[in-house]
């Protein structure tokens, strides 16, 4: 079903201190990137629940991005480590259920990495275009 001009839908859970601030910096630096992701701000990547990710996939998202601080930089010290382990295990479950694990991405983006944020977004959209729509997710 990988139709031409497919625009993947993405939900991006961004921690406010690093990834969210990095996204803001991409804005202040006017770095263009595809508009496919709708950001949802959380205090820390450690707040993101695996069920949210699945919920997003079931509600029409083709991919989910979780953006947190680099290891050692989490505003709450260790939230990103928990996020990492949760995503690692969740991706295994998704794979067993037949969902490409690449649809769920965890990325470290610091508040100074506006360019990195834009690049991550661009790459993720490209990857999802390659994977095509997540079928049976309510989109059709």
């Amino acid at each position, binding site marked *: 079903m990988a139709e031409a001009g497919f625009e993947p839908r993405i939900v991006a859970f961004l921690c406010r201190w690093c990834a969210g601030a990095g996204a803001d910096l991409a804005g202040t630096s006017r770095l263009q990137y595809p508009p496919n992701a709708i950001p949802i701000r959380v205090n820390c990547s450690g707040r993101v629940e695996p069920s949210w990710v699945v919920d997003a996939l079931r509600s029409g998202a083709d991919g989910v991005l979780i953006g947190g601080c680099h290891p050692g930089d989490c505003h709450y010290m260790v939230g990103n480590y928990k996020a990492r382990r949760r995503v690692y295990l969740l991706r295994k479950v998704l794979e067993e259920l*037949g969902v490409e694990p690449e649809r769920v991405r965890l990325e470290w983006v610091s508040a100074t990495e506006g360019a990195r944020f834009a690049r991550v977004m661009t790459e993720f959209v490209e990857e999802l275009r390659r994977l095509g729509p997540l079928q049976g997710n309510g989109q059709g």
Partner: protein
Amino acid sequence: MTEKLEGMSPRSQENSPRTSDLSPVTHHPSLKLAVYWTGSCGGCDVSFLELGAALLDVLSKVEIVFWPALVDAKRADVEALPAGAIDVALINGTLRTEENREMAELLREKSKLIVAYGACAHLGGIPGLANLSQREEILAAVFGDGFRPTPPPGGSPEDAPPELLAAALPLSAAVRVDYVVPGCPPPPGLISRTFDALLGELPPTGHVFASEKALCEECPRTKEDRRLTKVVRPHELLPDPEKCLLDQGMICLGPVTRGGCDAACPKAGMPCTGCLGPTPNAGDQGLAMLSALASLVRAGEEGEAAFASEDKVLDAIVDPVGTFHKYALPATWKVPSSLRGGGSGRGGRP
């Protein structure tokens, strides 16, 4: 989407199983009871025997209208009943065939109350793990390629075995369910609590006859060192009798599973596999446990240096879906083989 029962929240008044005082002294008009099995192992039917002597008491107060495992009555007999003629139908088993679904619908029509009895009817149960494969794959694996159900030699077309549904489903996917008695099979305490209610005062619709709190509350094991440095399978370890199994590396679903069984498995040194289903606010039982478990993993100091060893701990979980979604896969993941199950895999619902 998660098939959540409406109005699951009202809190159960009684949390302790009772078997002794089932009968109000006043004479009770007989309760017209049906017990039916769909895709079931039979364990649920046997589970009533666990009531022991109290079963006699129950039997003296009910009139069995339909119970294929006990009484010789046929589908036609049920069809002949007027709508609402049955007071309560306890249905166990997953919905796996067209016939299962038809029977569920028939009983719904004829019964005032429908009770999903046991993990399969409640959540889809262990047979629900078949949803990891497409229906065609299952049929091909069992009967060989190109299999189509046909009547036995010389039989009429309606003697053909029923079609397999596209997916195993919990009872609530086909009919409105009034109450749930969870468990694989339901533990005796909960069965007697259910009959108490059916023969006495009914709880609000949607009630699940189990605790609102997770099993840990009733588990006597001490919870101390909340970190998981290794994952072991039950056969690999003779657990310390006092300590929480999770702390010893066994994946125990107690924290995410309703109490009500008096922690029978953990008391016997076996981790909870989650048969009583998720607590009211847990959402997806498997994902909630996954999140908790991943949070607990530790391989030394948390940090980048530990990533590889943390992953190794998590890699020791053989079959994550079977571990985390042992009973609830159909209830939480509607389509077979995941979200992607477009086409033929797209759920069994009309």
